[in-house]
């Protein structure tokens, strides 16, 4: 369950960044980016290149992928991820959907991931308390 949650989070982040690079034609702006035209550019005077930059490279994609990978790694070492990950994702998705609309329903991926994480955390509830004690055990 945790493994699937991690995969979904990674998928969501990857899909967003790659999708932005492809669909928004962000790759088209790569020349502008690497020529240093964004350097010191005013945030108020937004160019399409700057917009594409925020939507892809500087988007939530990369750090979200890292969160997903960490979840996958935690699963491999049989540690249940803390529930605050799931709650944060839910809160963030709700805000995004409210402000930006449901899009094509892609946010369901994250909601499912959060649900899986919460169920896993609940199931592991008492077990993880014991594991925590064992982990911290005598040195």
């Amino acid at each position: 369950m945790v493994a699937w949650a991690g995969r979904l989070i990674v998928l969501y982040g990857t899909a967003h960044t790659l999708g932005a690079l492809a669909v928004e034609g962000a790759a088209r702006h790569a020349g502008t980016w690497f020529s240093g035209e964004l350097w010191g550019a005013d945030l108020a005077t937004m160019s399409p290149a700057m917009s594409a930059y925020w939507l892809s490279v500087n988007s939530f994609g990369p750090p979200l992928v890292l969160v997903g990978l960490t979840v996958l790694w935690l699963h491999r070492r049989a540690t249940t991820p803390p529930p605050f990950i799931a709650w944060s994702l839910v809160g963030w998705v709700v805000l995004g959907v409210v402000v930006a609309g449901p899009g094509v329903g892609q946010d369901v991926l994250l909601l499912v991931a959060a649900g899986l994480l919460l169920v896993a955390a609940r199931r592991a509830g008492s077990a993880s308390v014991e594991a925590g004690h064992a982990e911290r055990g005598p040195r």
Partner: protein
Amino acid sequence: VNARKLLLRGASTIMVGLGTGHLVLATIFSRDLVADWAGEGLWAAVPLALTDGVTHPSAALLRNEVAFWAGPGSFSVPLILLGCLVWHLAGRGVAVPAAIGWGLAAWCLLGGVLLVPSPYFLGTVAGALVVLAARNPVPR
């Protein structure tokens, strides 16, 4: 002193600081637009219109989209989340794998190079701290 824990705490402080700072600044920069969103009842105030095919998207549309993607839709929230997760794991004596640190460093380096001067480079430091922590053996 547990060096690994200190390194990880440093890394997570940077991540949370960057994420929070970015979110606050983005909101201040585009406070007019954010106020407009609130005025429109928030619901779908920033339609996810793909600008693909639109050769000359209006400046207003661009500004609105950017305010969203640079603010609530930006890297801030997942970065804060990653920082909290690293902090949480450090408290339990768990070092996150070096690969996470490398990924963070590489991403922040790219983002920083494209947008000089940028506090993005701090994220590279956070990534390096995570890598160092992963290499630091647990003192017994």
